[in-house]
């Protein structure tokens, strides 16, 4: 039987713990152009996401507020850093790649490359009940930035 610690340290990577301690863009944005509330009734993770998208479809500002576990909070924090400056379409594409990365049966090298820094959530895949913690804020992003709002 394998020793449990490596699995845990793979889950709670230092970067994840650091984002949990000091979440980025942890703020409410008044009068957002796009907004969504991500809530997991089962475990109580609860986040509000705020976006300012300009006329050209570029995400100019993004913030989040709420409460939840270390995985959900660090994932939301990293989301804000990654999508700021991206177009809505790019952000939605990254969301799709990350959700696939977290939920696909196997994991190929291209799939890992496609999510960039988010690959450090790979350890969460070993804890199936926690996968939804990592994807919660990204699903909320998908709700806020509907495909129809994506402009070229």
């Amino acid at each position, binding site marked *: 039987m394998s020793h449990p*610690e490596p699995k*845990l340290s793979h889950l709670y990577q230092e970067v994840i713990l650091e984002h949990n301690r000091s979440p980025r863009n942890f703020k409410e944005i008044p009068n957002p152009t796009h907004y969504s509330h991500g809530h997991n009734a089962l475990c*109580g993770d609860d986040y509000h996401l705020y976006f300012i998208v300009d006329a050209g479809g570029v995400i100019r500002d993004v913030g989040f507020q709420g409460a*939840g576990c270390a995985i959900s909070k660090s994932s939301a924090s990293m989301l804000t850093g990654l999508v700021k400056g991206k177009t809505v379409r790019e952000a939605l594409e990254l969301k799709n790649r990350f959700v696939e990365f977290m939920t696909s049966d196997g994991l190929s090298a291209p799939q890992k490359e496609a999510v960039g820094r988010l690959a450090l959530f790979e350890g969460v895949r070993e804890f199936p009940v926690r996968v939804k913690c990592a994807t919660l804020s990204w699903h909320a992003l998908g709700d806020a930035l509907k495909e129809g709002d994506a402009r070229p």
Partner: protein
Amino acid sequence: MTRGGVYDVGKIRKDFPVLSRKMNGRPLVYLDNAATAQKPACVIDTIQKFYREEYATIHRGVYSMSQEATERVDAVREICRRFLTAERTEEVLFVRGATEAINLVAAAWGRKFVGKGDEVIISAIEHHANIVPWQRVCAEKEAVLRVIPVNDRGELLLDAYRQMLSDKVKMVAVTHMSNALGTVNPIRQMARLAHGAGALFLADGAQGIAHQKVDVRDLGCDFYAFSSHKIYGPTGIGVLYGKLAHLESMDPYQTGGDMIESVTFEKTTFAKTPRKFEAGTPAIAEILGLGAALDYVGALGIERIEAYEQQLLETAIRKLSQIPGVRFIGTAAERAGLVSFLLGDIHPHDVGTVLDQEGVAVRSGHHCAQPVMNRFKVPATVRASFGLYNTVEEIDALADALGKVGKIFA
């Protein structure tokens, strides 16, 4: 395990096969008994033997195996009667669990006897299963659902309760023991007050049944609901105790086979209680398993189990109090069976995941008691709940594992 002898927990643990397994490479420390309890070999064997050698339906066949099965189910009804110190076996209904038991009362009693402007009283520390059925009855009947408030320790405010009672109140439905906080409510006193106002009293015994002696007549309960799986029996079966006069006054809950006296297309006359409330072929094997579980607990002695578990609880409170950052949610003077707590600002799910890797099974979440979480302004708690087979060493393992959580999230 003779009555009155030494409580030999090492010997008792050998009765529970699953306790010898490992989880994530560590000896299993099972502290989620408030969710569901593990099963002794006598329960597992009873069910297996029934399916392998004795299986037949009840109440129908004229052949011997069916008659034997019928007699054994009747015998379990008597075991339940004795366990609850009820007056008559007809007062014991087999249902799927405490949830169905409460739904049965809400539907079959509530929809008949609760009217417009009437009131139903519950408490602020109920499980969703003792909230939502009453909410629905009150909404349908334009009745008012009122909630007994709770103090910061998790104790119900009895003065407020007294003031809520009036002749408008038709039912008081309160948990015997809170699954989220461990509070044991003074249900004998609360039932007496309810009766003084002309209301009936239902106790949700899902937790209480496994941790202390329940004498429904002494407690003055009109209804008492419990699930088999929390008292070391199988899932899918439970008991609703109801005073005979109430059961006779109620309409059937579900209709179908086994609950009728005669059926024509013009008219159906219903069987007498308890069969009036037991439509369809019941969970026969599970009923027998429940009987084995209650016999097991009875042989050990519920009073001895209670005394032993109180020692475990005191040990847990003492040891966890020494861990920096531990904050208990629920500190009632009268409590049993569990500790609910937070560890610093670490989310309970993160605590639960680390404990799991250490072989320690706890519940982290809102415990199907969201109003309790809202009252104490926490999204969730970690809950370690004890059963008759837990040990002081397992509480040490919990405390050690919590130390590791603290290190990871330091």
